């Protein structure tokens, strides 16, 4: 953890510099338009300064985003609907719920596919097909239908997260549950171990590396799902709502600070899953690389 501080900082610094360069380049044409319409001819330094301080820039400069992010994170009471902490929390809660459901569902389906020939043959193709349905297209319909039967609030959003996150888990776990060495399977066979014993004592431990890798992808997908799910619910609160509100009024700085908030949440979630994975690996006598 400690050793990563310097590299992360270095790379972030490089990114920020790159970001500034792009901000100037991307904001310049519009600034030139503005100046032309206003009949002004600023010097280079002044011009660059202006490109970095537009109220609705094409690409906001890092400091603009940082200021906005800081204000919305620390200067507002966390109960305020404008607080990023509040909005991140709203999104996070449906992310976590959806992730929990998605992981559970993904594992259950994988277990079914690995153990039941009928499911292996018939279900997998349809699961794949289901994943190609663009959620943004069906999310509103799902939410309308659910609202009609009285289900509102967290659950519909979490369902979209679930839908997006179960698939990586299924794919990874089908592979992982089938990854034990043949000799280990033979060993269990000689004990006439039941399917559930083989499952718990062999397949599950063998699938752990696949599980945690899949869960990292799933938790990220789940967050995307939660954000997408916020849109058709009227976008009242959450990171998705902030994004949308920013988009209506081209408030690019708001959009970017919401994006940054989303990314930070994502990085934290992925890190937590990674740490959980490492703890489990350690508990399983994992050999240091």
């Amino acid at each position, binding site marked *: 953890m400690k050793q990563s501080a310097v590299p992360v900082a270095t790379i972030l610094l490089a990114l920020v510099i790159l970001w500034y360069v792009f901000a100037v380049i991307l904001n310049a044409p519009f600034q030139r338009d503005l100046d032309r319409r206003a009949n002004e001819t600023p010097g280079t330094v002044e011009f660059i300064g202006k490109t970095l301080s537009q109220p609705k820039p094409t690409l906001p400069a890092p400091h603009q985003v940082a200021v906005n992010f800081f204000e919305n994170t620390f200067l507002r009471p966390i109960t305020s609907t404008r607080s990023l902490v509040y909005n991140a929390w709203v999104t996070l809660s449906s992310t976590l719920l959806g992730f929990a459901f998605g992981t559970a569902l993904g594992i259950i389906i994988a277990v079914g596919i690995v153990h039941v020939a009928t499911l292996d043959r018939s279900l997998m193709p349809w699961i794949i097909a289901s994943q190609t349905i663009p959620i943004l297209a069906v999310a509103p319909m799902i939410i309308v239908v659910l609202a009609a039967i009285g289900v509102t609030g967290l659950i519909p959003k979490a369902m979209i997260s679930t839908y997006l996150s179960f698939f990586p888990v299924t794919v990874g776990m089908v592979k992982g549950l089938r990854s034990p060495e043949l*000799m280990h399977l*033979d*060993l269990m066979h000689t*004990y006439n*171990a039941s399917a559930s*014993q083989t499952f718990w*004592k062999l397949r599950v431990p063998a699938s752990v590396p696949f599980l945690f890798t899949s869960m990292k992808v799933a938790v990220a997908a789940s967050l995307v799902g939660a954000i997408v799910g916020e849109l058709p619910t009227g976008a009242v609160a959450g990171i998705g709502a902030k994004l949308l509100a920013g988009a209506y009024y081209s408030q690019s700085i708001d959009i970017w600070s919401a994006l940054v908030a989303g990314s930070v949440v994502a990085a934290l979630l992925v890190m937590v899953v990674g740490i959980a994975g490492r703890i489990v690996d350690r508990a399983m006598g994992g050999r240091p690389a």
Partner: protein
Amino acid sequence: MTGTSPAVVSASKLGLTFQTNDGPVQALSNVDLTIGKGEFVSFIGPSGCGKTTLLRVIADLEKPTSGTISVNGMTPEQAREKRAYGYVFQAAALFPWRTIERNVALPLEIIGLSRAEQAERIKRTMELVNLSGFEKKYPWQLSGGMQQRASIARALAFDADLLLMDEPFGALDEIVRDHLNEQLLELWERTNKTICFVTHSIPEAVYLSTRIVVMSPRPGRVTDIIESTLPKKRPLDIRETPEFLAIAARVRDGLRAGHSYD
């Protein structure tokens, strides 16, 4: 075979052909064999002659492609389902995420033994293979020979009436080997188990067995079956007796005959 004791394994015209990417490989052909209760049968033969394959067929890990085989009068599958045998693989096949102790406990968990009984058996077998003190280590923290001993302990803890052992002592030094040979004989005598034992060591085969099955390669056939005339009680120095050496010579001849060198 004596015919008096009931057959534990009985194979006739057994054959097995593997289909591989570049054509079929005949691993067993026309194997006829009967093993009675309480026998100690060693299998010896050049590398790749089908010893492991034969053991795997008995254990229902491989299906023969011709001929018939029965174990305890049942199909191998039924026998396996009745947990009729314990198997020691040629490689240790320990689970890397379990400590040695938990590896030995694996079959005991599966048959549903109580914690206390598990602990008792683990302790006993770990002592038998001289691994006490390594209970809490993970497999990769053990030397090759120690891993092999752990896998023997696991099979012995399982305590089935038929033991299938595929070169269990291959990675052990002479002294440990002698010790384990003695222990195994003692166990066999005491419990009247039936043991099928693959080895590459002629003295080991002669020392342990009531019968020695000599096999020859491609396709794996049984070329000779040698009944041992040694008494049941066998001190280690029986290995210097002329009787012992005579049997060993006969095995060596059988082995050489089936070999492609010289």
